[in-house]
C-alpha cells in the first residue's frame, strides 16, 4: 500500500473505480439521450423510467421465468425497446413539429406513470438481484481489489458506447442518420423512409437505457425510483457534453463519473454537487457544451 497526495492508494483507486462504474451508466444513458435528441429533437424524460424498466424486466425474468442475467441482457433491451417503439408510434410522432416543451412534458408524464405503476406493484424498497456465478469474485491488482462484475460493466459499457459511435460516425447507416438529423425532408426525398428510421432510432435509444438497467440491477437494487435518482445527473452530463453529440455524451459520461469519484476522495462534501458545478462552468464558457456545435 502506498499514498498519493496523502491519500491511501486503495481509497483513491476504490473511488476511481466507483467513478468509472457510475461513469459507465452516465455514458450509456446520456448516449441514448443524445441519439434520441439528435434524431427526434425530443428530450426524452422517460429515459430514467426506461432504464428502470430494463432492471425490472431482468428481475421479473429471473424470478418468474427462471431466465438469468445473460438472457436478460439480451431480452430486456428488446422488450423495453419495443415498448419504446410503441410510445413513439402512439405519442411522440405527433409532437415533432412542436416546441421542445411539449416533448419534455409528455415524456416526463410518461415517466411518472411508468414509475407509479412500478411503485404500485413492486413497492419502494429495493429488490435484490443476484449476480451470475460467472461474474462473482474478483482479482487483486496489487494496488487495489477489482471485482469481476465491475470490470465487466466498464468493459461492456465502453464496447457498447464505441460500437454505437462507430455505427453513427463511420457507416452508411450512420450517414443516413446524421443527414436526417440535419435535413430530414431532403433525405426522405432521396428515397429513404425517414419516419421508420426515427421510430427505430427511438427504439434503439430506449434499448440502450434498458441495457444499462440490466447491468445496474446487480450493483444497485432494483427499485421503481432508481431511474429518477440517476436521470437528473445524466441530463447534466448531456448538457456538459453538448446536446445531441454522440462523442460528447460518451466522453463526458465517463469523465464526470471519474471527477465525481475523485471529489469523494479529496472533498467529499462536494461530491453530490460537483457535476452541477461543472455544468454551470461549461455553460458559461461554452454554451453549446464541450462537443456541441453552435447553431
Amino acid at each position: 500500500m502506498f499514498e498519493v497526495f496523502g491519500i491511501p492508494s486503495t481509497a483513491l483507486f476504490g473511488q476511481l473505480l466507483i467513478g468509472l462504474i457510475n461513469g459507465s451508466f452516465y455514458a450509456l444513458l446520456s448516449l441514448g439521450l443524445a441519439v434520441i435528441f439528435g434524431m427526434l429533437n425530443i428530450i426524452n424524460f422517460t429515459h430514467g423510467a426506461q432504464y428502470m424498466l430494463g432492471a425490472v424486466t431482468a428481475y421479473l425474468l429471473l424470478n418468474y421465468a427462471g431466465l438469468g442475467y445473460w438472457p436478460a441482457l439480451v431480452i430486456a433491451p428488446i422488450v423495453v425497446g419495443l415498448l419504446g417503439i410503441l410510445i413513439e408510434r402512439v405519442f411522440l410522432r405527433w409532437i415533432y413539429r412542436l416546441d421542445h416543451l411539449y416533448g419534455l412534458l409528455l415524456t416526463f408524464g410518461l415517466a411518472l406513470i411508468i414509475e407509479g405503476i412500478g411503485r404500485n406493484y413492486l413497492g419502494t424498497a429495493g429488490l435484490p438481484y443476484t449476480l451470475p456465478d460467472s461474474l462473482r469474485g474478483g482479482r487483486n491488482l496489487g494496488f487495489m481489489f477489482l471485482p469481476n462484475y465491475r470490470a465487466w460493466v466498464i468493459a461492456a459499457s465502453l464496447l457498447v458506447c464505441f460500437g454505437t459511435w462507430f455505427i453513427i460516425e463511420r457507416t452508411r447507416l450512420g450517414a443516413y442518420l446524421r443527414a436526417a438529423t440535419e435535413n430530414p425532408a431532403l433525405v426522405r426525398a432521396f428515397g429513404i423512409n425517414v419516419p421508420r428510421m426515427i421510430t427505430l432510432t427511438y427504439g434503439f435509444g430506449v434499448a440502450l437505457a434498458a441495457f444499462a438497467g440490466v447491468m445496474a440491477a446487480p450493483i444497485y437494487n432494483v427499485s421503481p425510483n432508481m431511474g429518477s435518482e440517476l436521470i437528473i445527473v445524466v441530463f447534466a452530463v448531456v448538457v456538459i457534453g453538448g446536446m445531441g453529440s454522440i462523442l460528447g455524451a460518451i466522453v463526458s459520461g465517463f469523465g464526470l463519473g471519474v471527477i465525481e469519484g475523485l471529489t469523494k476522495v479529496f472533498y467529499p462534501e462536494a461530491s453530490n454537487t460537483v457535476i452541477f458545478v461543472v455544468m454551470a462552468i461549461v455553460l458559461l464558457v461554452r454554451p453549446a457544451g464541450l462537443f456541441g456545435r453552435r447553431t
Partner: protein
Amino acid sequence: MLDVGAPLLAVDDLHAWYGESHILHGVSFEVRAGEVVTLLGRNGAGKTTTLKSIMGMVDHRSGSIRFEGRELIACSSDRIAQAGIAFCPEERGIFASLGVEENLLLPPVVRPGGLSLEQVFELFPNLKERLRTSQGSKLSGGEQQMLAIGRILRTGARLLLLDEPTEGLAPVIIQQIGKTIRALKENGFTILLVEQNFRFAATVADRYYVMEHGRIIDRFANAELDASVEKLHDYLGV
C-alpha cells in the same frame, strides 16, 4: 418502351399549400422523355414549390402528378424518389456533418442504369480531388453544386428536378453546369429545370413554361425564344 408521344411527367391541375398558404393554383404542364424543360418566372412565382410538390415535399397538395403513367399525388416523398425522380434543391442541401464522399454516396440507388462513380467524376473532375475533404460544407459554391448534382446521377433516376443550379455561381462554373446538363441530356436524362436566368436556360432548354402567382401563364419552344424575348422581359421584369 414508353410511347414517344406520351409524356414522362404529366402534371395536371396541381394545387399546393404550405400550412394555410395556398401557393400553387392549378399548375398543368408536361415533360416528355429526353427533354430539358425550364420553368421561368419571378421570385415567388411558385417554381420551387412546383418542384417540391412533385417531390411530395409540401404540406398538402392536390391534383394529378403522373410519372411514367403512374399517379404519384398520394405518395410520400420517399416513394416518389423510389419511383425514379431525383431532386437537387436550390440551397444544394450539402450535409455539413457528412464528408464529401458520404454526401456523394448518400442517395440510395433506386433502380439500375445510374451513372457509375467514374462517370460522375468524368463530368465533375473537381469532385474526385475533393473526395477526402472532411466536410461537405467546406467546398466552394461551385463544387457544392457539382456534388449536389453528381450525387443524384448515381441513383438511376431518369427525371432530374434541378432548382436554380446556376444561382450565385461564377460565369465559368455556369458554363460547366450548362455543359453538364447538355451531356446529361445526351445520356438520356430528362430534366425539369427552374431558372431565373433565361440566358442560361436558352443554352440548354428545349421548351419553357412561364409561371406567375402559382399558375402557368405561357409556354413556348426554344425555337420561339427570339420572337418571345419582348414578352419574356415583361414576364420576368428584366
